[in-house]
């Protein structure tokens, strides 16, 4: 599951789509607008995001708005945060070392 999340997040277009969706749901057309990409190309990215559980599509047959699903994103962010915390202490010791011995 998280493998799929990270694979989905590895692409800059998909990250940009998620950033846009954090501001609220949007149609495929609205999502495609800021990118130099066709709607089918955006739809392909959306399929990857949907498969990873990062977005869902609305039922409205005409618009089928895309929504952000925060669950897996939160888990992925938690991983990154715990990894960050795991190393921050070491970097703080380096700060002290660099300060102490000019």
């Amino acid at each position: 599951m998280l493998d799929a999340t990270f694979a989905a997040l590895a692409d800059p277009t998909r990250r940009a789509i998620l950033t846009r969706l954090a501001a609220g749901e949007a149609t495929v057309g609205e999502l495609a607008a800021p990118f130099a990409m066709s709607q089918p190309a955006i739809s392909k990215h959306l399929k990857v995001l949907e498969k990873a559980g990062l977005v869902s599509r609305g039922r409205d047959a005409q618009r089928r708005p895309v929504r952000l699903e925060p669950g897996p994103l939160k888990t992925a962010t938690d991983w990154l945060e715990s990894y960050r915390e795991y190393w921050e202490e070491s970097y703080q010791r380096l700060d002290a070392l660099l300060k102490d011995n000019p």
Partner: protein
Amino acid sequence: MSVTVSTPSPREIRMVRTFAAPRERVFAALTEPALLKNWYGAKGWWLTDAEIDLRVGGAWRFVSAGPGGITMASGGVYREIAPPSRLVYTERFDDQWYAGESLVTAELTGATTLTTTLLFETREIRDHVLRSPMERGLGESYARLDTLFSERTES
């Protein structure tokens, strides 16, 4: 100035951190055993022994002490050495807490931003490494609980 972590590709972890010191000094802190022993090691870990043969093809070997007195050894070979801007080396752990070998690239820019990119053999290994602090953190909490419980029983 805290470290930021990202996953630029499915097999990589990248850490970016800024230091208030010139690149030369940060590079020295990455490559001189006496300096490394003062700072290097993830949460709860200290570097106790560092041997470095700083030339391309030269080997490095670290021994670290961790929670509860456990030790962990790792080592590798230097691939690129370009002070003060770039250092590339392989890394492998003796006890195989992750499989295979990773490639570590440290890039120093400005005054001074250190970008460390770890490239693993597979995405599964990368995810395992990324997940491990959380799992290890839980494990350590349980270990502390165990200690607490055993102390209670003894007294």
